[in-house]
């Protein structure tokens, strides 16, 4: 019977990791530590391994299969797919970056140099979706 409880706990840990990460993307400490969900899947897989050791039931094997799949998928996503090669950016601390002019939402051209001597600037390059 303990095998069943452990199998359920394993599934619960994995599901909780998915819910916390996807629902917590706006929380910097959750979004910026994606290793967290990989670690949670590893814990889930360990618990499922214990469940199988205690009783070789189909549900224990199912929990183990599920958590190992999530662990492999999550690790591949975070450590391989999500990686961005380090760019040789021309932005350097202490240096003035090259000026540029681009249209804003109203079509008005805006230059970085417009703000020189007037305001500090937070310059954000983003992808357009999350």
């Amino acid at each position, binding site marked *: 019977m303990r095998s069943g409880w452990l199998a359920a706990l394993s599934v619960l840990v994995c599901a909780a990791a998915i819910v916390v990460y996807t629902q917590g*993307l*706006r929380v*910097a*400490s959750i*979004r*910026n530590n*994606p290793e967290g969900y990989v670690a949670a899947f590893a814990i889930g897989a360990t618990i499922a391994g214990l469940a199988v050791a205690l009783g070789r039931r189909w549900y224990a094997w199912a929990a183990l299969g599920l958590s190992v799949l999530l662990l492999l998928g999550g690790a591949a996503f*975070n450590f391989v797919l*999500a*990686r*961005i*090669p*380090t*760019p*040789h*950016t*021309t*932005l*350097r*601390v*202490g*240096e*003035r*970056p*090259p000026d*540029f002019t*681009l*249209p*804003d*939402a*109203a*079509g008005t051209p*805006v230059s*970085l*140099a417009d*703000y*020189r*001597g*007037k*305001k*500090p*600037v*937070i*310059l*954000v*390059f*983003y*992808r*357009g*979706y*999350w």
Partner: protein
Amino acid sequence: MAELQGLGAALSEAEQAGVAIIAVSPDPNQQSHDMAERLHLGFRFLADRDLAVTRRYWLLHAHGGEHGEDVPTPTTAVLDRSGAVRWLWVSDNFQVRPDAAEVRRAVRGLE
């Protein structure tokens, strides 16, 4: 967009008024503008449709987009009044964005 939403929440109205927030993306202008309106953000959204500026800044992540298109490497820089970079953050994992609290600290530490 997550980093922009976080910034909007982390900076007070006075701080947002004292600093220009310039958001550059290949997004069509209208889409970014609508998003800014919805979030009540006083950002300048600039459209780098052909990624020419992103390329000039050497921030291109080739084939890094959802559908294999070229996208910018998520980057945030804080420039002081003279236009010099004082704080820089470049992502090495597309899930990760700069912590808005750190950007706020960099802005507050400028003068």
